[in-house]
Each structure stands twice: as structure tokens, then as C-alpha cells.
């Protein structure tokens, strides 16, 4: 069962939201707010990167990881793009990118990967942006063919011009890719594009042109592929059972220390934890669902638990600004004061040591671009009364606010069967009830929610999660009025709440287009403040990520919020 509903901002389409909803049940997390919980279930706030290499680690050996989801297929730019488990297990480990997400001075940043010889040269001339990538001469595919400019050109055109591509954001701005020589690729954008570092490195990876050009890429990749440009290559994908990775001998960077990594699919959470306890698997990356957190709280012997609260996953209450009663700013503001977000976060994630609610719609993964303007909203019943009464509402006989003969009653929609969400809804129901709002719960399926209900605006209040998958701000897909899904814009955008906040479109446009980081940051912070002032919705919490590893695992074990928990698998060892 997918555990959270997720919508990814960069996607600009509801399709992305639903695909992620189905494909993701565990999300990337950063180490920024992380901590390490010991096997007895206690916690501290040490760095989440736990270098356990001091244990008697050695080269060689097999690591077995329990994976709660099996990827549906492995064509990472089309049908199976956005499948986080597939991306973490296979894409990140086997395919090269131009940029990697790394922590620099406490912030997650896209930095040139080992594919590149250095920082690309960026030139803006005549309103067009040119990016020149110099490829490391040592970079080769697993068959010995060089990773070349042709691979950049092939990847860009496959994404820009292909059928059934998951998300063309950014690539649809590419005018041309020139290949003056084998190791130089020059990408020309139609206009300036702020998040250019996410090209060939955000959600997508470079693909080998010499193997795929002129062929059916989907058919060649969907069941796994033998080529690699990363430290690992796929040895075997035994459908329904496991994926096995072995070192790519031709990788030019740091070589893997393990002989083999097996991702064994264990969809049942209870069974996965038992497998860890019995030593059948040595690592888990469980979704922070109620049952998983309960097990962690009880303690898993001989196991380290990395908890990471500073992730790219934001769970929020999404108010439909075009529907009663949330078409009233006063009601939105009163609801924001009625909800005790601290209590919700404590109840959901307290055992993991996570206590602070989110104060911005920009996630910690993109923390440099986030304000904290929502911090003014904390539970305050008196403030609720004041705001509602000032707006002409009065409590009826049952204590519910009413105005012009209409009571402040509404329903909330989320994903049926998601225990964490259902618990959140129950807490909300109680808190809002005490504040004079009557909320009913009407959950549904992912396809219904993201395919129909949210895009069509056929809801009042929603509860779901958005993801920032890499450290580039992307509020425009969620808060720009141009991102309200309509027939006119081809139903693109995930401004499902129909928010129209004066001044925000321009600021978010600057964030998207400017190549000046300082200017982008200033615009983002300003937009964040305007959003908080209008309260179109309410951020609740960033969903923490949890990585559990047996004591027998050595190496710098940590969660990369963009690339997942196995981003540095080549450094892991078995003691």
C-alpha cells in the first residue's frame, strides 16, 4: 500500500502528483534535522551521518536491504519515472548525473558530479542561456564507451520530444544541444532558466546514446538494464523477489566496498521489521507510518536508526480557496489558529524526536529559500473567536460557527487506508470541533484524489504531501495562479487549492527564471511571506525519513534527501 500521497512540485502536472502518490511510500530526507536513535528506542540529536567504519568493517560481503516497494519498471523518464524506490535502488546507483545533491555549509545543494570535469560555464546572451558542460575524460559506461556529449543530446531530446514523458519541466525550455566534441556539450535554453542545475541531475539521469539511439528505449529499460555509468550495475532483477547490484568495474570514481547488494522486496511492514530482527536483512527504509514508528519506539536490538526531519516532504492541509467556507480568508486564518500543529507533530513523530511543525511551504531540502512566516500560527482559541466574530460569524446552538444561515461545516479528503493520515484527521476533527468547526472525513483512493477530486477542485479541505525532490525552489507549481489546473492550461499545475495571491506570481516567476541566486532567494522569501499572510493553506510537518541499519554495517550511513538512503552505498561495508 502506498503510504503517502505525494505531489511533486516541479512536475506542473497532476499526473506527477498521482504517479508519485502511487510510487512513493518512503521519501528522501536530509540530515539537517536528523538524529540517531539507538537500538533501545531512545534518541539524540547527533549528526545523522553515522560513520560506523570504526567497527570491524572489511571489504567484500553481501548486504541485504528490505525494500517495501518493488519498482514497476525501470524506464526512469517515462512510465516509471517518479518511483522513488526504483530511483533510490537502481537509478541513483547505476546511472550518471551531471549534478549530485550534496550538503554544503549546512544546505543541500546541487554540485557537479564526477561526470563533469568542473562547474559548467553559464552565459546569458540575448535573453538566452547557454550552459557548457565539460565531461570528465575518465567517465565511461560499463561497456567502456565514453560518457559523451552525445549522451547529453540524446537524453535532452528524449525528454523534450518523447511521448509519455513523466515531466518535461526545464527540458521543454531547451532550444538545442550542440556537441562540438565528444567531451563538450553545449545546451542552449530558449530563455533564462533558474533551476538549470536540475537538468541531467534532478529527477533524470544521463542515458547511453550509443546503446539506445534509434531503439525502443522503454522496451530496453523497463525490465532492468545491463549498462551502467555509476558505481553499481544491475546484476539481476528477479521480479517480485529482489534486485541485485554488483560493482561496475569500469566506474572511474570510488569503487564499491561490498561485493553485492540485494534489495529484497518485503511489502509487509511487520514482516520487514522481523526480517531485520532475525538478520535476514541488514537495512530498512520504512515509511514513517504509525506501526513502524511504534516498532522503532519499542526498540530494535543491534540496530541503528537514523531519523531525518529536514526532508523534502511536506504534509499540509490544503484548503480549497474557491469553495465555502475556505473562500473566506477569515475562515482560513481561524482554522490556522484552531489547529494545534505542535500537538499533531508530537503525536505523529514524537517517538522519533521530531517535534517542530513546518513553518513554510518551502521544504527544508530547499531551506535556503524558505521563510518561517507561518510560525505566527499556533493554537489560540481566543484568536479564533476574535477572527470569526469580526467576520460576522456566530456560534449556533451546537457550538458551530454559522453565518448567513450556513454553518462552518466541511469535509476533509485524503488517502483511504493511510493510518498516519487517518490519525491526523482524527486529531484535526477533535481540535477543529473544539474551535467550532464541524469536519467530516471523506477519504478516497489515490487515483480518485489526484486524478479527479483535487485537479477539479471538488473538495473543501485536503491532506496530502508534496515533495521537493531536489534542492531547487519550485513554489510556482503550487502557488502561482497560472498553475491552477484548467482546460486552458492543459490541466497543468498543482495549485489544486485555487489560490490567487496578489504579487506572488511575479515573485515566483523571478525564482524560476533568474540565474542570480541572491535574487531568487530574496524573491522566494518575499513570496513565502505573502503566502503566509493570505493563508491559502496550512503546512503541518515535514515527514521525517527513517533509515535503519544493523550494527554490522559500516561506512558513512546517512539519508540524502534527494538521492535517498543508498546514495553512498559504495562506501558501505559489512563488519
Amino acid at each position, binding site marked *: 500500500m502506498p503510504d503517502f500521497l505525494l505531489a511533486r512540485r516541479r512536475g506542473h502536472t497532476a499526473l506527477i502528483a498521482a504517479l508519485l502518490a502511487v510510487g512513493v511510500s518512503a521519501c528522501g530526507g536530509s540530515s539537517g534535522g536528523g538524529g540517531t536513535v539507538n537500538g533501545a528506542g531512545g534518541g539524540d540529536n547527533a549528526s545523522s551521518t553515522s560513520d560506523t567504519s570504526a567497527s570491524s568493517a572489511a571489504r567484500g560481503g553481501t548486504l541485504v536491504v528490505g525494500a517495501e516497494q518493488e519498482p514497476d519498471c525501470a524506464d526512469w523518464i517515462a512510465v*516509471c519515472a517518479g518511483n522513488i524506490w526504483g530511483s533510490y535502488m537502481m537509478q541513483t546507483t547505476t546511472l550518471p548525473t551531471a549534478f549530485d545533491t550534496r550538503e554544503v555549509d549546512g544546505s543541500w545543494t546541487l554540485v557537479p558530479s564526477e561526470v563533469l570535469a568542473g562547474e559548467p560555464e553559464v552565459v546569458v546572451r540575448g535573453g538566452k542561456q547557454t550552459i557548457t558542460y565539460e565531461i570528465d575524460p575518465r567517465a565511461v559506461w560499463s561497456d567502456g564507451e565514453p560518457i559523451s556529449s552525445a549522451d547529453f543530446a540524446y537524453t535532452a531530446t528524449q525528454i523534450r520530444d518523447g511521448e509519455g514523458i513523466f515531466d518535461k519541466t526545464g527540458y521543454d525550455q531547451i532550444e538545442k544541444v550542440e556537441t562540438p566534441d565528444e567531451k563538450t556539450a553545449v545546451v542552449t535554453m530558449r530563455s533564462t532558466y533558474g533551476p538549470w542545475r536540475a537538468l541531467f541531475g534532478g529527477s533524470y539521469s544521463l542515458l547511453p546514446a550509443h546503446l539506445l539511439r534509434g531503439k525502443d528505449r522503454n522496451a530496453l529499460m523497463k525490465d532492468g538494464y545491463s549498462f551502467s555509468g555509476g558505481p553499481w550495475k544491475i546484476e539481476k532483477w528477479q521480479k517480485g523477489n529482489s534486485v541485485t547490484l554488483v560493482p561496475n568495474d569500469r566506474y572511474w570514481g570510488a569503487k564499491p566496498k561490498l561485493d553485492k547488494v540485494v534489495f529484497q522486496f518485503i511489502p509487509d511492514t511487520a514482516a520487514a521489521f522481523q526480517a531485520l530482527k532475525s538478520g535476514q536483512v541488514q537495512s530498512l527504509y520504512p515509511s514513517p507510518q504509525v506501526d513502524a514508528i511504534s516498532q522503532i519506539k519499542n526498540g530494535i536490538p543491534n540496530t541503528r536508526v537514523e531519523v531525518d526531519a529536514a526532508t523534502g516532504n511536506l504534509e499540509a492541509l490544503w484548503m480549497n480557496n474557491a469553495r465555502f467556507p475556505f473562500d473566506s480568508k477569515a475562515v482560513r486564518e481561524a482554522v490556522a489558529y484552531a489547529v494545534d500543529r505542535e500537538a499533531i507533530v508530537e503525536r505523529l513523530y514524537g517517538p522519533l524526536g521530531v517535534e517542530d511543525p513546518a513553518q513554510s511551504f518551502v521544504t527544508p531540502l530547499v531551506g535556503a529559500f524558505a521563510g518561517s512566516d507561518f510560525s505566527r500560527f499556533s493554537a489560540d482559541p481566543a484568536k479564533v473567536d476574535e477572527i470569526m466574530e469580526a467576520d460576522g460569524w456566530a456560534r449556533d446552538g451546537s457550538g458551530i460557527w454559522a453565518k448567513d444561515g450556513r454553518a462552518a461545516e466541511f469535509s476533509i479528503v485524503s488517502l483511504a487506508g493511510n493510518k498516519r493520515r487517518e490519525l491526523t484527521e482524527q486529531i484535526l476533527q477533535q481540535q477543529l470541533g473544539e474551535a467550532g468547526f464541524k469536519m467530516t472525513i471523506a477519504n478516497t483512493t489515490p487515483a480518485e484524489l489526484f486524478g479527479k477530486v483535487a485537479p477539479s477542485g471538488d473538495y473543501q479541505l485536503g491532506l496530502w504531501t508534496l515533495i521537493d525532490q531536489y534542492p531547487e525552489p519550485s513554489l510556482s507549481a503550487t502557488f502561482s495562479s497560472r498553475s491552477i489546473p484548467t482546460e486552458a492550461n492543459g490541466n497543468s499545475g498543482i495549485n489544486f487549492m485555487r489560490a490567487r495571491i496578489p504579487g506572488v506570481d511575479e515573485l515566483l516567476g523571478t525564482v524560476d527564471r533568474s540565474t542570480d541566486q541572491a535574487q531568487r532567494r530574496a524573491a522566494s522569501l518575499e513570496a513565502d511571506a505573502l503566502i503566509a499572510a493570505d493563508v491559502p493553506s496550512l503546512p503541518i510537518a515535514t515527514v521525517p525519513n527513517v533509515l535503519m541499519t544493523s550494527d554490522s554495517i559500516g561506512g558513512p550511513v546517512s539519508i540524502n534527501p534527494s538521492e535517498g538512503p543508498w546514495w553512498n552505498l559504495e562506501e558501505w561495508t559489512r563488519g
Partner: protein
Amino acid sequence: MASLLRFSLRRFAWSVPVVLLASFLLFWAVRATFDPVAKLRQGRDAGAVQREIERLGLDRSVPEQYLLWMKGFVTGDWGTSTRTGGSVSSLIGQALWPTVQLMFWGVLLAAFVALAIGVYTAVRQYSAGDYVLSTLAYVGISLPAFWFGLMLIQVLAVWPVQSLGWSEPPFYFVGLHTPGQSGFNLDYLRHLALPLATLTVTLTASWSRFARTAMLDTLSSDYVRTARAKGVPPLAVVMRHALRNALAPFVTIVALDTGVLFGGLIVTEQIYSIPGMGRLFLQSLQAGDVFVLVPWMFVVALAVVFFNLLADVSYALLDPKVKLR
């Protein structure tokens, strides 16, 4: 022999309209509850939805769509999964094998044990052994599979490692083989033991009650009394006279339950991470993959009908009183 063949063919002929009706009802029900192009509707390309509707013939009436689908099914074109992009027939083919393995061993073991318990408790009716085994049978019938499965894992796999300090558990519970292993070997048996136990406990419990009742019925019949009066040894009375006649209803219930197992191992397969039919159903249901759901249900329906047919034929073979007509 000829009459048995005629009987079987007649029963088979009767099964055809049942299968067709079942397949139409399944097709109609899935079409009525799932939108085959739901995924595409969420995209920005509005034209893609219409193109897909035309390509798949979704603009036609349900009976027309059904005929198209059935034609494809019969000719081996079961369609493409929207979830994986792969062929549905290969997905179902891959999922069938682990389920068939579980079923084969489960039914074999449960039938053997249940029959033994049934015979013993009938012959020793109202003995201490009868009471103990009957009580255990009721406990087995009422055990929830998911709970029992998790208990087995805890007791037989986790505790030996955690409490006894064993370096590895005596039984595994993830899949049917350790990655890299295959075939019938010790690794397979260590993986098979716990799911098999989970599956067989309920089957054994309920089947043993059927076996006991059937045996009691035959043991109290006139011909058994006659055999005893004629001095036939007790073991021969039970094995040759009573058991043979008790087998007919027992085999019938085993065959009927076996057909249902094709799609009924969802919990066992989920707990033990076995990529069988149950797990395929769950995954397809969650993804709204109608192109897998319809053939999946049809294959399960075919299995149920086939095992019903098998039950009829077995009954006719085992019970001479049944006329083959």
C-alpha cells in the same frame, strides 16, 4: 471409461456458459468501477485520453468491449499493464508459479494430515484424543492467518536469533528462495515451512472436521456393520470399506477449496513476501490497473470452475452410487 469421458465432457460443456457468464460479469463490474485511462486523465495532454480511448475501443458499448477483450484473451493477447508497461500474460504467468507451489504443497500436506486426523477422531470418537484434536481444529479454524503467520515468524525465526543467539534463523520468511538460490533444496524448504504452516493450519483444521464427519457417517452404515460381523479385521474395515466411501465428500471439499486458493492467498503471500497471484492482485488493485485485474479474476474463475469439474469427476469416480450421466 467411455461413460466417464462422456460424463467429463458433458460437465465441461456445462462449464463453458458458466465461465462466459462469469467473465462478462467480471468485465462489466471492473469497467463500471475503474477508469482504464484514469492515469492519462491526470496528464496535460488532453488528446492522449481520447487517443487511448479509441485505441482500446473504450468508446464502444460494454458488450462490444467484452467481445474484443475475450477475443484477445483467447488468442493470447491479454493486453498491457498500465502499471508496469509489460505484458499481462507474462505478469500473471510469473505470479501463478509461486502460488501453485504454495497450493501444491499446502493442499498435499493439509489433505494428508486432515484425513489422518479425521480417520483417527472418527474411529476413536469421544476419546481424549478426539477431544484434543477437535478442540485444536476449532482453534485452527478461528486463527486469523495474518496473526498466526506473524506469530510463527516471531517464534520460529526471530526468537532463535534474538533469544538463543543463533547466527541465523532456522526458517526464513521472505520469499521462497534466498536471492541467488533456486530449485528444490534446503534453502527452499526453509523458506517454504512457515508459509506452508500458515496455509495448512486453517485448511487442515476445517478439512479434518469434514473427514471426521464423513468417516462417522460411513462407520455407522450397514455395510460396515456387516463387514465387522463377517469378521473383517478392524483396520481393513476402516481402510477398505469406510475410508474409501468417506473419501468422496472429502475430495470434493478439497477440490473446491483448492480452486478458491488460486486467488485466496493474499494474506499469506503478503506476510511472506511471495510474489504470487494474491500480491499481484493487491498491486494491480492499488494501481487501478484494470488490464491486469480483469484477466486475473478470469484466471481465478477458470481455476474455480476447473476444480469444480474435478470435484464432480472425482466424486463420480470414488462413489459407485453416482451414475455417470
